[in-house]
């Protein structure tokens, strides 16, 4: 196969990231990618961007997890696997029934390195990747809440205590997404949690979120028919229906 130059190849990276190349170009680009860190970096960026396009806010069908779980091996792993990464072939044999799909393998060149890192220094990997875990996700929700609050199409609801003081704000987006923010609630004792509810005319409470002992920011979805928000204190796992009187309430206008 004749090699093509860098500028020809980099023009293909966007389409490749969207699986929009045809087979005659895939091979040439994959060869180029194996040698060109700049194009690999661009591919990674495009794929991350494409992944954001796929955000859908939906649930997988009921029962699908059970199908997957039924195909995993039933025998518990031996202790050796706790300290080392088994080979791919070894693991594949542990999947009870695998289909044989055609998988593209480019972009996985660093797999061996990743395996070595995980197997040799799992503590380092854990520490490194805690940086991109729940903390960052919470920061993202906080950021999205701020964006929503600044959007003129959002509705803002102040949740007030019985003395009239504001204890939290909620931001409601037209698509049903909402955020609780600016919370000023005291930390609860262990074994308790704040819980956010949606109500219609003061009735039919529906749980929106179990907020924990010291909520800062939280996201929720609510039906457009709800016209009131309330926060109660419940036992740690939350309740199906409120068991105490609301400490904060707010009317959606």
């Amino acid at each position, binding site marked *: 196969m004749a090699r093509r130059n860098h500028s020809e190849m980099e023009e293909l990276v966007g389409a490749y990231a969207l699986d929009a190349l*045809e087979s005659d170009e895939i091979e040439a680009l994959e060869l180029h990618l194996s040698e060109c860190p700049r194009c690999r970096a661009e591919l990674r960026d495009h794929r991350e961007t494409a992944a954001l396009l796929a955000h859908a806010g939906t649930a997988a069908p009921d029962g699908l997890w059970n199908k997957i779980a039924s195909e995993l091996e039933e025998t518990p792993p031996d202790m050796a696997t706790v300290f080392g990464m088994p080979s791919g072939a070894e693991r594949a044999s542990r999947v009870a029934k695998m289909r044989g799909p055609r998988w593209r393998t480019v972009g996985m060149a660093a797999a061996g390195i990743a395996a070595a890192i995980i197997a040799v220094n799992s503590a380092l990997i854990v520490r490194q990747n805690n940086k991109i875990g729940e903390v960052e996700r919470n920061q993202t929700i906080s950021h999205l809440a701020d964006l929503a609050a600044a959007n003129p199409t959002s509705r803002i609801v102040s949740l007030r205590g019985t003395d009239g003081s504001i204890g939290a704000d909620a931001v409601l987006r037209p698509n049903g997404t909402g955020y609780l923010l600016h919370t000023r609630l005291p930390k609860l004792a262990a074994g308790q949690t704040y819980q956010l509810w949606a109500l219609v005319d003061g009735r039919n409470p529906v749980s929106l979120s179990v907020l924990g002992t010291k909520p800062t920011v939280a996201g929720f979805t609510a039906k457009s028919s709800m016209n009131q928000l309330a926060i109660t204190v419940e036992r740690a796992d939350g309740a199906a229906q409120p068991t105490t009187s609301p400490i904060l309430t707010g009317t959606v206008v």
Partner: protein
Amino acid sequence: MAADIRDQSDATLVLGIARYKQDALAEVYRRHAGAVYALARRVTNASSVAEEVVQEVLLKLWSNPDRFDPDRGSLRSFLLTQAHSRAVDIARSDSSRRRREESDASRTAKAGYDLEREVWDMAMAEQVQGAMSALPIDERKAIELAYFGGHSYREVATMLDQPEGTVKSRIRSGLRRLRVELQAAGIVGAEA
């Protein structure tokens, strides 16, 4: 404990999967299967095929967790990339199958789904939609037809009656522009 595993980062879950911890795979499923399923369904236009894609992607992760390299991107991106590739393969190889869309949307269940993740997804989708609408229409159409339609850029060129080279460039420039828009909105790099 369930509460502990929900606090773990995606990369830590993959480490758990490498140690044959099924609850780690279950947590990955809880966080990401909805998005993987939605993308596969959109590309293949068939719920049953989309379910197969989710199964394959998750079982691949179970068999080869070492193929996920956190330095190369998020787990969500990794799973979606594989799902998209597989969905496109199916859509292109079996065009009759994709027309077999069952009207089983009502089967979608909330059980076990990560509600917080759903909120996050919805909010992100809104931001991404805003960024997409800021793209020139030719770039937006090219990206949508390629990514969600599962078409090659050559097919897109035929559909839009535009030169192949132009479509190829528009996909690339559109993705770059989209990234800049999302960076400006503080979204890119925030993937968990």
